[in-house]
């Protein structure tokens, strides 16, 4: 077992809710991320699925240091990220990059593609002009684009090509972890397959790790080695991707897989057993957060919050049923 590249330890992020315009009294907390732990190993893809508002993006923002955690720790290479200063912090920022969902708003329309990709390099390295151009050409080729496209502007590219540019920018600094926040959700089917294959190929050649955030089960399951299922700020189940697909245990994970669209018309699908929608994170239910929607809820579920424990090797669930 290699040492994990990234480790989240009971990470929490609470956002205060204030009332009124003048006094701004705190009237409560939105527990966006409430005790999340997982690890990402070198060269591995961890998928993070869940519905909107479950805290996927807040988790990614915490990893990217765009938010400071309320409690808990992020360890990268065994070091607590919160304690990093100066050069070490720059190294962390260099080695952890991100690709967003919408390639139309994530690339500056006023910059040439070459400058977009070179920008992180200018900040993090002291390469000469020629060396910069060389590195830009190199990463463009890595993502399957012609190096001479570097002098064009983003508007001259299609959505799929733009997403390749965003990936090239993320790779430029010899990155070790890329957070892919819904990175293929906005793309057409055929282009999505291209980008996903490209990502897998890059992982094989460069050994980079991915945190793949998405809501489409089949896409996440296809690209990930392990999957974490998130519900209202907590991870309810974490397992090997294939195992989770064939044998989801947590009632919420089971509901998600029942709701997944079939890949063939002959595939039988059960009717969804859960009703209603995700409750507000401002006032989450007591005990297990899923219990008001859970078909198997017991009296205990409303009182006691379940702890995630291993039920099989590499397979952990937070549910009183197990």
């Amino acid at each position, binding site marked *: 077992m290699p040492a994990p590249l990234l480790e989240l330890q009971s990470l929490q992020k609470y956002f205060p809710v204030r009332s009124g315009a003048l006094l701004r009294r705190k009237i409560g907390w939105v527990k966006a991320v409430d005790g999340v732990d997982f690890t990402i190993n070198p060269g591995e893809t961890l998928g993070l699925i869940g519905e909107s508002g479950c805290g996927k993006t807040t988790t990614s923002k915490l990893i990217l240091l765009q938010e400071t955690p309320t409690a808990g720790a992020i360890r990268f290479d065994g070091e607590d990220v919160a304690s990093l200063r100066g050069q070490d912090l720059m190294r962390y920022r260099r080695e952890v990059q991100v690709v967003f969902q919408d390639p139309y708003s994530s690339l500056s329309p006023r910059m040439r593609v070459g400058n977009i990709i070179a920008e992180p390099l200018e900040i993090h390295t002291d390469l000469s002009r020629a060396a910069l151009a060389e590195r830009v050409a190199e990463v463009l080729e890595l993502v399957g684009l012609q190096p001479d496209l570097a002098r064009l502007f983003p508007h001259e590219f299609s959505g799929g090509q733009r997403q390749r540019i965003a990936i090239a920018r993320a790779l430029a600094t010899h990155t070790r972890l890329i957070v892919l926040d819904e990175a293929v959700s906005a793309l*057409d089917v055929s282009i999505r*397959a*291209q980008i*996903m294959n490209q990502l897998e190929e890059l992982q094989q050649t460069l050994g980079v790790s991915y945190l793949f955030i998405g809501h489409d089960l089949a896409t996440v399951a296809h690209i990930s080695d392990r999957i974490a299922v998130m519900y209202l700020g907590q991870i309810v189940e974490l397992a090997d991707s294939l195992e989770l697909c064939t044998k989801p245990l947590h009632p919420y994970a089971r509901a998600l897989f029942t709701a997944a669209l079939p890949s063939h018309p*002959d595939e039988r699908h059960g009717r*969804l057993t859960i009703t209603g*929608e995700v409750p507000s994170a401002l006032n989450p239910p007591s005990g297990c957060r899923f219990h008001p929607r859970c078909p198997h809820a017991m009296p205990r579920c409303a009182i006691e919050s379940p702890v995630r424990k291993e039920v099989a090797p590499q397979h952990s669930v937070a549910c009183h049923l197990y």
Partner: protein
Amino acid sequence: MAELLRVSGLQTHYTSFGGSRVIKAVDKINFTLREGETIGLVGESGCGKTTTCLSVVGLLPPAARIVGGSIEFDGEELTRKSPREMRRIRGRRIAMILQDPMASLNPLFSIYTQVAEPAFYHQRVRGRSLRERVRQLLRAVRIPSPEVRMREYPHQMSGGMRQRVVGAIAMAGGPKLIIADEPTTNLDVTIQAQYLDVLKDIQQETGVALIFVTHNLGIVARMCDRMAVMYAGKIVEQGSVRDLFRGARHPYTRALLGSMPKLGSKEPLYAIAGQPPNLARLPPGCAFHPRCAHAMPRCREQEPTDRLITMDWTARCWLLDQPAQESYASATA
């Protein structure tokens, strides 16, 4: 069952200002829809799915015009209707559900007003029975406590609930055909599943026919009886969903199916090289040939025509003309 909609040779073109450039967004497409049936219109962005639907409901933007073909709905020719006549058909006999429910609902009116409007105008329901009708409609789309909800405004509802309200409005005129243009794209997985179940139930209760526009083949597999695959303004293959998922004949359909990730399988995805063509600069011959793995010299020169595979299944590809079927099978294996 009786035929409800017959689109034949439909051509819808966009013309640039001054008419110097013509874009053939929909180019001689044919399809039919029987009562109570669901057809899926599949393809990538810009292939003409939405323009096809807008042509049917007569809501094309000013730059677009139907230049040929016919749309026969319930025994009437829609292409020759005046805007006034179309307005009487829309909402009453054909309804539409769009992708973004917030954009199709008016933020200034209560849910009640908006759901009641089609019933008020098209079915002349008034007074207490109108209220009862709205309650019924909201119950049909499974909105909990309809009596309370109908006094609310769109901003008070979640995305899934809003889309259900749009569904209720669509049903309010008692239509025979609902056109749903990517209705669940903005919804979460479990909410999407609930919504699709609601649509299926409504269809079973009322026998309304559905045109489902989507790029998600999973939705087609779950919801549709038949599917039509569009590429660059043309329907390249259509038939029953089962037949097409089992053994599509057109390389584009096969590629689309191959590029769809399957749950529990790690097999590499089939990625179609290149990108969808620009409709203003279409390649000669078959529009798919630059991306096709089986392109032949003939594909570059001549456009293929529809070939009948079974009674209810057509595809347009030169490979189907090859003398021996084996050569095609070996080419696509």
